[in-house]
Each structure stands twice: as C-alpha cells, then as structure tokens.
C-alpha cells in the first residue's frame, strides 16, 4: 500500500471579521479554487494534497500577527496567501513570516510601504501598489479626454494611496482636480460630501472606494441626487454589488479600472472557472487572490515542498521566460516542472513579473458596465 503522505499546507489569511468582512470571503474562495484545481489535477509532488488553512486577520495588525503565528507554528504552513490588509501584512511579515522564513504573497495589501519591507525576499504581492494603478488610471482618463474631475476616496491606505498617486499624475498630465476629499467608511449619508465635491464644477467623479461598501452608498446617493454625470472607480469599485443593487441600466456612465493579465484569456479562463465554482469573478481582489494561491502552489511544487526554496522558485515560475501557464493549468505545469522546463505563469490579474521588491507593476484594463457585467473598454498602460 501507498504510504500516507503529509499534506502541504498554505495559509489563507484574511480579514474575515472586521471592517472588510464583506470582501474577504470571495478572496478566500478564489484562493481555494486554485487549491482545488491543484488537487483535482494530481496534487502536489507525489500526489500530496494541498490544503488551505483559513485564518482571520480581522484587518488589523493584532489579528494579523495572531493568525499568521498560528498558521506558521501550529498548522505548519509553508507559504501564505495574505493577509489582506496592509497593516496586517506589515506587522505579520515583520514579526512572524520573515523571521520564520515563510513566503507571504498578499493579494490585496496595496500600501506602498510594503515595497520597503526588509523581507529577505519573502514578501510578495500579486496586486500592484496603489502608486501604479493611480497613475495608470490618471493617464487613461487624460487619454479618454477627461480634463476635469473630482476625487473622493475612502480614508484608508487603499484610498489614500490611489488618490494621491492619481492626483499627482493627473495634474502632471495637465488635468484639473476640482475637488479632492477623503471620507470615513460606514456613514449613512454622503450627500453633503457629494454636494461639496460637485460644487467644484466637475462632471466626473473619481471614486476610490469599495463597490460593496461605502462606495456603493456614495454611488447610489450620487445617482439618486444627480450629482456628477460620469463615475470612475478603481479596482475596488469593480464589483458586482453596484450592478446588483443599483441595476446595470443605471450604470451606463460608470467605469472602473482593474488589473488584468496581458494574455487576456487568462482572465476569461479564471472568470469561467470561478463562476462555475459559484464565485463572483468581478468581486474585488479575487483575481489577485487566485493568482497568489496558484503561484504559491507552483513555487512549492518547484521547490519540492520545502519552504527554503519557495522564494526563488516564485520568481522563476513567472519571470517572463518559459512555457506560458494559464490559470488552472496545473497538470501541464506540474509536468513541465518535473521535466525541468522553465514555466511562466500568466495570471488572471497580470503576468506577475516580480521586481526586486516583490512588487508587480500590473497591467490594467478599463471596464464599463455592459449587459452581462463588466466589459473591457480599453487596455491601460
């Protein structure tokens, strides 16, 4: 008989309870999709199962370090997807994963501070730093002919990061910012905020927020009261919630940017698979979460299940050279790895060629709301 083989565990650490409770479940199930694909297509190495250990980081450093410690020390994970929130990423990497030599790939920690962590090359992310997306969006808007916009952003690292990068680039490109204001999440009314922003005279509102959170409230109140004509969101707004709650017919002037892979059928492949698994592929950060888990699995496979080599392997499987691997192509990748052939993962959220800091530059697309959800308007550079 075959000797029982130990499972290979990775941590799926996210803000299940706490302020981003509404976003975390979709991200976790996207990562689990990757895991189940791995297991369905032969598992790890000699057929070991890949197991995702879910931990609750509560979107704060206290919870993040606690969950990470448990995952690393009690569960014995050899890699980690998450935490979701930047504060938790910063804390958990400094006090747990980096000292323990565990690779961490965050799918949503977007703070520019993550770039600077002294991490012995152990902290990666599949989501571009807010700096990149903000700038890319600014350039796209200029190209699309928006000259004057107002910006509303949620007052956290995500919103602040995007908004500031956006403003810098937009103004540098000759655009005019006619209103720039942060807001706290969770308030019942934002009409006065909107009125104030609208008083600057812009017709377009750039909204850096979450589509299933405060961003939805603001979008609704803006539409209902006729503030602004056009609405532009970041990836946080590219969520199904506005379509479900407000109706696609009301969102004809709503656009959002989000990271996508260059091989855009990567995204379609993922979308199909995730929809089949019962997920919402337009939910925020699901593509990055999926990619993070899938890449971690590839790296572990390449490193032979040993945490030591994961970091190097992670770079090798997606450095742009080698046989392209699309989302879900585990069996193929496994074979190639076994054969010693170089592979290059082309993810749903981008190609993920990590720079020396473990960041990805990200490629973005600009979406509009069509009849069946979001449709790509144009690629962004």
């Amino acid at each position: 008989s075959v000797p029982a083989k130990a499972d290979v565990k990775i941590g799926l650490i996210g803000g299940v309870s706490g302020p981003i409770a509404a976003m975390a479940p979709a991200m976790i199930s996207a990562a689990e999709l990757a895991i189940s694909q791995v297991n369905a297509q032969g598992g790890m190495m000699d057929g070991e199962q890949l197991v995702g250990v879910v931990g609750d980081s509560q979107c704060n450093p206290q919870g993040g370090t606690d969950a990470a410690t448990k995952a690393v020390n009690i569960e014995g994970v050899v890699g980690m997807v998450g935490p979701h929130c930047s504060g938790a990423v910063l804390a958990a990497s400094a006090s747990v994963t980096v000292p323990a030599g565990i690779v961490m790939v965050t799918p949503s920690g977007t703070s520019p501070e993550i770039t600077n962590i002294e991490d012995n090359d152990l902290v990666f992310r599949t989501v571009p730093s807010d700096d990149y997306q903000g700038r890319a969006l600014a350039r796209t808007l200029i190209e699309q002919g928006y000259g004057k916009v107002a910006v509303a952003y949620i007052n956290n690292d995500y919103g602040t990061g995007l908004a500031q990068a956006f403003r810098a680039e937009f103004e540098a490109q000759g655009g005019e910012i006619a209103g720039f204001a942060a807001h706290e999440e969770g308030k019942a009314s934002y009409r006065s905020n909107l009125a104030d922003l609208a008083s600057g005279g812009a017709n377009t509102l750039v909204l850096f927020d979450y589509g299933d959170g405060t961003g939805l409230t603001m979008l609704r109140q803006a539409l209902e009261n006729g503030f602004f004509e056009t609405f532009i969101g970041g990836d946080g707004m590219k969520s199904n919630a506005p379509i479900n709650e407000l109706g696609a017919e009301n969102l004809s002037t709503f656009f959002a940017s989000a990271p996508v892979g260059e091989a855009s059928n990567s995204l379609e492949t993922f979308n199909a698979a995730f929809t089949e698994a019962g997920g919402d592929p337009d939910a925020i950060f699901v593509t990055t979460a999926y990619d993070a888990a899938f890449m971690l699995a590839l790296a572990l496979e390449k490193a032979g299940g040993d945490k030591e080599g994961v970091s190097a392997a992670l770079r090798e499987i997606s450095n742009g050279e080698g046989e392209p691997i699309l989302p879900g192509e585990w069996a193929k990748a496994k074979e190639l790895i076994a054969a010693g052939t170089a592979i290059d993962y082309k993810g749903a959220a981008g190609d993920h060629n990590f720079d020396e800091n473990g960041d990805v530059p990200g490629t973005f697309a600009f979406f509009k709301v069509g009849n069946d959800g979001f449709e790509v308007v144009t690629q962004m550079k």
Partner: protein
Amino acid sequence: MGFLELVNFYIIPGIVLGSIYALGAVGITLIFAILRYAHLAHGDLATLGAFVAFAVVTGIGVSPYAALPVAIVATALVAVGIDKVFYEHLRERPKIITVIASLGIALMVRAVVQVIWGVDSESYVRGISRPDVYFGLRIRDREIYTVLAMLALVGALYVFLSRSKWGKAMRAMSDNPNLALLSGIDNKTVIVLTWVIAGGLCAAAGVFLGINTELKSMMGWQMLLPMFAAAILGGVGRVEGAVLGGLIVGLAEELSVLILPSEYKAATAFVILLFMLLVRPTGILRGKVL
C-alpha cells in the same frame, strides 16, 4: 451656495440621518436611565432588526414598511430574551460588568447575522429612486416616511412615559430600584417593558437605515458611537432629548463638510458633544447626572 442647495443636500439628509440616530438614541437613553448602563449591543441589534425585515421582504415579497412591524416585534423579543438569559443575573453587580457583557452580546448578534445572512451588502429594493421635487425641495417618499415614523414612534413613547402609570414606574425604577420594589412596582415588568421599547425602536432605526442606504453586517456597529453621542447630548433619560440630540448629530455631520475636511466628518458628533459637556454637563435638556 444657494439656499435650496443647502436645504436639499445638507439639511434634508441631515434630518433623515438624524431621525435614524434618534430612534437608536432613544433606546440607549432609556436603558441608560432605567437599567443604568451603556448598552453596547444596541447597534448590532439594529442590524439584526434590519436583516429580519430583509428576510420578510425577500421571503414574502412585501415592502420594507410592511416588514417593519415584524422586525420591531422580533427584535423586541430578542432584546427581552437577551436580557433574561444574559443580563438578568448581573443586575446586582457593578454596572460595568453588564457593559462588558453587552459588548460580548454585540459580537454574538453580529456573528448570528453574518452566519445567517452573510456579509454582502443587500438592499430592500433594487435600483435607485430619484427624489420628487416640491417647490424646489428634493425629497423622496422614503425620507418623509423615515421622519414621520420616527416622530410617531417617539411621540407615542413620550405620551406613554409621561401619562401612564407604567411610564412613571419606569422612572421610579431608574431612580431607586430597591425602593421601587418596596413600593410594589414589579421590577421585572418594568425591565421587560424597557427592552421591548428599546429593542423595537432599535429595529426601526436599523430598518430605516437600510431603507435609506444598504444593509451591511457592520451597519449597526458603525452607528453606535453617533447614537451614544446623541443620547448624551440630549440629556440622559430624556426621550425628547435623544430626538433632539439625534437630529443635531445628524445635521452636524452633514453640515460639517462645509467647514471641516470631510475625513473628519465622523468626529463632528464628538466635537459637539465635548463642547456641550463643557458648557452644560447635563445635556441640552437637563438629564440625569449618573
């Protein structure tokens, strides 16, 4: 900025928001005065009420206004039940114990909501509704109903408290529970009554918040601090004070955008509160000094 604009985009939203706060603050102020503790699970009970109504709305397809009574009754029952199971045996203990217990209840209620209804944003009615314009004032039906319902519920409560024997008994209980007992006032009934009222109003706050925005599992928790500010602002134990406090907090939050950077909107309630405590520590209407 024109006058109409001020009214449409600052005053009216402020009043609607204030009415929602007021519904919650009235319950908080009653519990404060009669049972003498800060009930930190109030916000999450409001969430529960909102989701109960949601279940009714999606289950049998009625409008949220029709579901409101169901939510009120259900939440009132839950509140009474929570008191019986968890708070009752702490009655003789220092009040801080119950405050901490209510924090635990907040977590438990929220967990129940999250397990049953999940964590996604929901709305009672899909789509958007644009306001009607009356003489340049942009008002939605739901806003009128919110304010009217608040006035009706709180007005009825006010009459009950000042006219009926049980209303007075509630005050007596809040004043000197032992002596109330010795006067033949059945403290159990008074406490049940308090929870029925507080729980019911709290559900109404949740439902109206849901009607005016969306339903989220954290919606109540996020309303908790402004509701407390409103209760204290109005004077503890004063029902009409809580309404006034709620309206002031609501209006101030909306108007604050005109003078403060909008990220400080959430602080306005507290700035007003601190200022008021400095000049008038008993609240706008003279409340209890606890």
